[in-house]
């Protein structure tokens, strides 16, 4: 049977070679190879989802081969309920962002080379079962993202790119230390995540190592004190890159917490859960408040994803199967919804070349399709019950309510501010009298629609019947949950 996981990871590398060989003036066919490769990746991941066995709790499609025998590093890949949804999300958003990248004009060749390297890094992070392999894929995401934001970004792109790079690197460098300490603490020295999950570290070390890992993931999730890179990176990144940045990169932090922090350091998780919950709620309320005060459309959506990722951490802090289910589902849903939202922002930016909300008004008369999609996605992202945004948040709230009732109440109040700033945005953009400047904006092209409609359909389906996604992750989540 072909090594499915490795082929998904290294398919984009084939793309890199193809694109590197084609001369840069044929940018049309570079774009089509891009679509071909990401499309193939999506098909492969759909095939992966189809023949994934929901009942098995252990890793599936495992690929193992010793890579650096001297350093005990092995090339070990595997998929379980937790990473399956995220891999599918990456493949889907990768394809859709590739669709959105078709209107990139300058230096198309380098763009797609970095784009494919980014895809390799993202896929690898979700599939790696060896700590060092995980770390290497975790860091390979940085270089292409730096160049993508840096070269094709907005006016303050240099500052934003450097800030993103240094911020994430500072976090992940701490993780390197923790990985090595874990390696030397585990008695049969090993980097293998599965073996390390069963090693009981002594409580003192658990606390230190938990924080060591957690800082790296908190920077990626953007938890409260470490979130300031996100708005800058989002505002300056080109649309397809910020779709990927919001859709997938934020989930790597959450995934890391589930894969490494919780199974390795159970006692530390217990003691730190209240602190986690507090930070999560700060994230939710603070993110919502700051988003309310934004005039830049993209920055507002960036802060809204800070607020939504707060629910993921709240779900984690609940330390029970409902909370975990909510967190993982929220990660998947948030990826889909925010990916769509950034596409919407991109569509508007391509026409207006500005993101200042006060420049728009009454667009729903001149751009009906755009109005429908934007309203739908905003409603999904403000957590309207019946759409997928609500299900994840609801499960996290229910999970966390058992232990921290007052925090959940605060989070619910935070939700109100969430509703306020999204509707206020809708009012400024869509409703009211048609802004004379916006008369000339044409409605969404077929290309934009093709990239947004699948996301809307998924949001509706998952919102209507969440069991579709939950059945995949149920067994794995119960596995993690019964540790606590």
């Amino acid at each position, binding site marked *: 049977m072909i090594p499915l996981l490795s082929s998904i990871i290294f398919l984009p590398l084939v793309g890199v070679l193809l694109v590197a060989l084609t001369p840069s003036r044929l940018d049309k066919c570079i774009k089509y190879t891009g679509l071909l490769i990401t499309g193939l990746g999506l098909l492969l991941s759909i095939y992966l989802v189809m023949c994934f066995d929901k009942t098995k709790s252990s890793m599936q499609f495992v690929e193992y081969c010793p890579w650096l025998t001297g*350093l005990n590093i092995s090339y070990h890949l595997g998929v379980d309920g937790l990473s399956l949804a995220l891999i599918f999300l990456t493949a889907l958003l990768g394809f859709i962002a590739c669709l959105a990248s078709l209107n990139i004009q300058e230096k198309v060749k380098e763009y797609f080379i970095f784009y494919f390297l980014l895809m390799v890094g993202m896929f690898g992070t979700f599939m790696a079962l060896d700590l060092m392999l995980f770390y290497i894929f975790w*860091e390979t995401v940085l270089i292409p993202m730096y160049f993508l934001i840096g070269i094709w970004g907005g006016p303050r792109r240099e500052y934003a*790119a450097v800030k993103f790079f*240094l911020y994430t690197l500072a976090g992940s*460098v701490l993780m390197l230390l923790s990985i090595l300490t874990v390696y*030397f603490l585990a008695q049969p020295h090993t980097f293998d995540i599965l073996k390390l999950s069963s090693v009981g570290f002594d409580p003192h070390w658990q606390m230190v190592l938990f924080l060591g890992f957690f800082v790296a993931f908190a920077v990626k999730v953007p938890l409260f004190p470490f979130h300031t890179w996100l708005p800058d990176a989002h505002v300056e990144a080109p649309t397809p890159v910020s779709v990927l940045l919001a859709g997938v990169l934020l989930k790597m932090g959450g995934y890391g917490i589930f894969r490494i922090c919780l199974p390795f350091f159970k006692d530390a998780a217990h003691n730190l859960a209240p602190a986690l919950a507090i930070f999560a709620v700060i994230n939710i309320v603070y993110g919502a408040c700051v988003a309310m005060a934004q005039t830049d459309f993209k920055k507002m959506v960036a802060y809204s994803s800070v607020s939504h990722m707060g629910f993921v951490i709240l779900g984690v802090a609940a330390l029970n199967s409902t909370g975990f289910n909510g967190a993982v589902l929220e990660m998947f849903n948030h990826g889909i919804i925010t990916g769509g939202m950034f596409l919407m922002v991109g569509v508007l930016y391509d026409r207006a070349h500005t993101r200042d909300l006060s420049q728009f008004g009454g667009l729903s008369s001149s751009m009906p399709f755009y109005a429908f999609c934007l309203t739908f996605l905003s409603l999904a992202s403000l957590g309207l019950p019946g759409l997928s945004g609500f299900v994840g948040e609801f499960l996290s709230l229910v999970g966390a309510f058992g232990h921290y009732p007052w925090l959940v109440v605060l989070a619910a109040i935070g939700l109100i501010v969430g509703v306020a700033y999204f509707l206020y945005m809708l009012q400024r953009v869509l409703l009211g009298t048609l802004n004379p400047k916006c008369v000339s904006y044409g409605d969404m092209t077929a290309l934009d629609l093709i990239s947004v409609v699948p996301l809307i359909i998924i949001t509706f389906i998952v919102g209507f019947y969440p069991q579709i996604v939950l059945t995949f992750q149920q067994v794995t989540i119960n596995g993690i949950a019964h540790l606590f």
Partner: protein
Amino acid sequence: MSIQFLFPELFLFAMALWVLFGSAFPSLRKISDFFATLGILGALLILPLTTNSSTVAFFDLLINDPISYFFRFLILLASVLIIFLSSGDKRIEEEHKGEYFFFILSLTVSLMLAVSSRSLLMVYITVEAVSIISYILIGYFRNDKFSSEAGLKYFLFGALSTGIMLYGVSLIYGLCGSLDLNMIANLAQGGHVFLPAFILAVVFILVGLAFKCSLVPFHMVAPDAYQGAPTAVSAFLSIGPKAMGFALLIRLFLTNQTPLIPQWTTLASGLAIITMIIGNIIALKQTNVKRMLAYSSIAHAGFMLMALSVVHQVGIQALLVYLFIYVFMNVGAFGCVILTNREEVDDYAGLSRQNPLAALIMATSLLSLAGLPPLAGFMAKFVVIAAVIQAKSYTLALIAVANSVVALFYYLRIIKVMYLSKNDCIKPINCSPVLILVLIVTVIANILLGLWPQGIMHIITLP
């Protein structure tokens, strides 16, 4: 008999003389770099034959063990890369090209002897030889005021340091009655020696070696030397003598894995911390690329010393791996400076548009120097940090890792200017085919050693 051990050095010196002789004839002078490469490759071929010769050679002054074999191989590899680099540098063309390559070859010979020396006498002679040849090489462009000033400064500083080292050697000779390193080590560990005086003497010697490895308190002249010297020479300075310095540190301080003086670990980690911090922080605001690379090589020296502070077999192995990878990273970076012959950071503006290949080479080397995963620099850093954590010195590891973040900033500055800035600086690029070939080799090495470093990794086995 022990002469077999010296065959590579003898062959290389013979070729050096031939190149010197050839430089008298204009026709031969033009292809003197070809002869030089021939010499080095010949030495590389002969080197494996020396493994089965006797362990001690040349009146017990030289030793033939795996470490000396590795370092001799490393130095030959470094010098062959430097020769390719120098043949690309246009300015060396007009000066007496023949002498230049003679000095390079003789520097290589003395380095090879230095790394396999077993007695303090041999140590002093080879260190002095290396210093003298590097004074000449640094001041090679006599009519360029930067190069001559750098040469003079390096001479004064170097002469003083080796003078202090010699005084230390004489004191040790007095204390231990012998110059043989093993003898001294046994005496010291046996405790038959008057410790305070012994420490004084050892510190005196450390000054000389630290100057060679450009460790911080003794690094003052290195930035000026690197900036003033011809770029190929500063590249060689940052690899050759530095490797020799670390080889001698291993020989002197860590013979058979027990530190010569009890405080070695604190001394080494203290020096390493200062070196990394000061090296990285000063590099932040440099505007001259060569000077910035000088400080980056100081910071990397701190990293290597950190590997030595781990008094365990894995520490030394980590250092060897680090040095091997460090050669390629540095040659790549300095090579780009030669390729584009631009020294100011701002001159690199828009290089990615003017010459994407040069920008790619520079970016890969810099990112590898910064230690980012898919590239070899990460493997080097990982191995050293693993050794340090294995020795449970967590604060040292923390500082090292924090420094790598600071280091990334000034590497990114150059990349930012090359790729992200809008204004372009149009300067001619001397793309001599040989230079581009060697730079592509370094890029491939950087990527290959990062992803699949089986070749080098057999040296090290983590416990």
